[in-house]
């Protein structure tokens, strides 16, 4: 089947023009489907690899999802469910290689996604503590409430560790883990533009314009990160490290996508963006210092230097004009704005804390992909040779 080239492929054509920046070319191709992590992604992979008008005769995907949700201890850290959701959202972003693009709006698949989203939203609302709303709900007071919510405490977090202690391998792991989001930076929040009006809409476009380089493709934050990865000797093709990305990191990105792709969650998305911007400048400064300590040059650190300055601007606009402006227009969205901000801190915090805990315990901060187990792949059963069975019993 032919898959139309994604929008980003125009960058490859532009690259042939004199003076065009063709670095960061990894952003021009859709990612490949990564390895399944459980029965849900195993079943989903079979569906996605089929043409949309000839789906597998028997797909147990809906049943697998229901079973997985019921059995899951925590949907937010369930790698199988989070990866499935990530793949399904990627159909709206850059697409997936060799996957029929018509799956994006296939009603049956959307229903499957809705099941996962329903469980995920419930888990977020259950686990995220939403602060009490400010007494006054004008834009300024909403902004100050968000600044108060996102204020740094005294505890040493991931960025502190990177500044002063991270090893070169740990820094590499960090760059890899962040890339899931940063190679598509700002895209999840762009979904909200058509859903807003007036001041909030203008503010979101102003922030996003800066994120996308304000007309200069080479200053687009996604491009800065791709160049940083390449300069650090990493693969900047989107999704190339997906197998080592843990469930918490997937969940943090899925949270943004879920908020962005549902109009009714626009309050949460704007709260998320405000919190994200408000927790960027100071950590990015520490990360930049840490990367320089480890010997990385400007070609890698430029991304972080840019964010120190850009997000000091963005946090003011996002808190006041964007989130605050939205609450002035639609006061009933205040609770969701605060929820979105708190959810941002929660999911981003979990991903960062998970990595930091692994490092301080001397373990890799990335996921170690297990050996492929036959049981995870939907297909005809094969006889297991007896000598392998003996090895597994003894192993």
């Amino acid at each position, binding site marked *: 089947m032919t898959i139309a080239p994604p929008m980003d492929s125009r960058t490859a054509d532009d690259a042939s023009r004199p003076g065009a920046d063709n670095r960061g070319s990894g952003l021009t191709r859709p990612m490949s489907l990564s390895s399944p992590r459980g029965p849900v992604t195993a079943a989903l992979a079979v569906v996605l690899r089929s043409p949309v008008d000839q789906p597998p005769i028997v797909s147990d995907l809906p049943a697998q999802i229901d079973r997985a949700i019921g059995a899951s201890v925590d949907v937010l850290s369930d790698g199988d469910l989070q990866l499935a959701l990530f793949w399904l959202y990627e159909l709206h972003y850059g697409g997936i290689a060799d996957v029929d693009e018509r799956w994006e709006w296939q009603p049956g698949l959307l229903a499957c996604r809705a099941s996962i989203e329903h469980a995920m939203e419930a888990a977020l609302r259950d686990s995220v503590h939403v602060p009490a709303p*400010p*007494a*006054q709900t004008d834009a*300024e*007071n909403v902004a*100050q409430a968000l*600044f108060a919510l996102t*204020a*740094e405490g005294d505890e040493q977090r991931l960025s502190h560790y990177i500044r002063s202690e991270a090893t070169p391998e740990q820094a590499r792991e960090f760059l890899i883990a962040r890339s899931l989001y940063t190679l598509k930076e700002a895209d999840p929040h762009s979904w909200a533009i058509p859903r807003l009006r*007036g*001041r909030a809409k*203008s*503010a979101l476009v*102003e922030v996003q*314009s*800066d994120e996308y380089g*304000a007309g*200069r493709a080479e*200053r687009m934050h996604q491009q800065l990160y791709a160049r940083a990865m390449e300069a650090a000797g990493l693969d900047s093709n989107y999704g190339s490290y997906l197998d080592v990305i843990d469930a918490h990191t997937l969940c943090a990105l899925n949270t943004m996508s879920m908020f962005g792709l549902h109009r009714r969650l626009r309050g949460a998305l704007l709260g998320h963006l405000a919190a994200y911007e408000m927790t960027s*400048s*100071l950590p990015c*400064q520490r990360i930049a210092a840490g990367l320089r300590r480890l010997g990385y040059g400007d070609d890698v650190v*430029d991304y972080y*230097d*840019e964010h*120190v*300055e*850009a*997000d*000091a*601007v963005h*946090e*003011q*606009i996002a808190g*006041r*004009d964007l989130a605050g*402006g939205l609450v002035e227009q639609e006061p009933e969205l205040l609770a969701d704005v605060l929820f979105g901000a708190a959810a941002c801190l929660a999911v981003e915090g979990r991903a960062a804390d998970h990595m930091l805990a692994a490092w301080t315990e001397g373990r890799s901060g990335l996921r170690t992909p297990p050996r492929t187990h036959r049981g995870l792949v939907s297909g005809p059963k094969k006889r297991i040779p007896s000598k392998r069975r003996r090895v597994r019993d003894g192993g």
Partner: protein
Amino acid sequence: MTVGEPARKHVEVFACPNGPFLVRGDIAIEVDDAENPGGGARRDERRVVALCRCGTSSIRPYCDGTHKVIGFRTVPPAR
């Protein structure tokens, strides 16, 4: 920034409560190298800049968010 406002003036400055000056418009900022030896991200092309009001930014004249951790206030705390 509401609909119906007169067209934006050439340069606008907004004083963020407890924060930087946000400046929109075509401006040129001259900064002595001694004041900002660290250099940093290119700044002359940004459409909106945040200028430090608290005096402790490491990338002065630009804001880097340090005002948040030093308790810089320009307005009394809300009750």
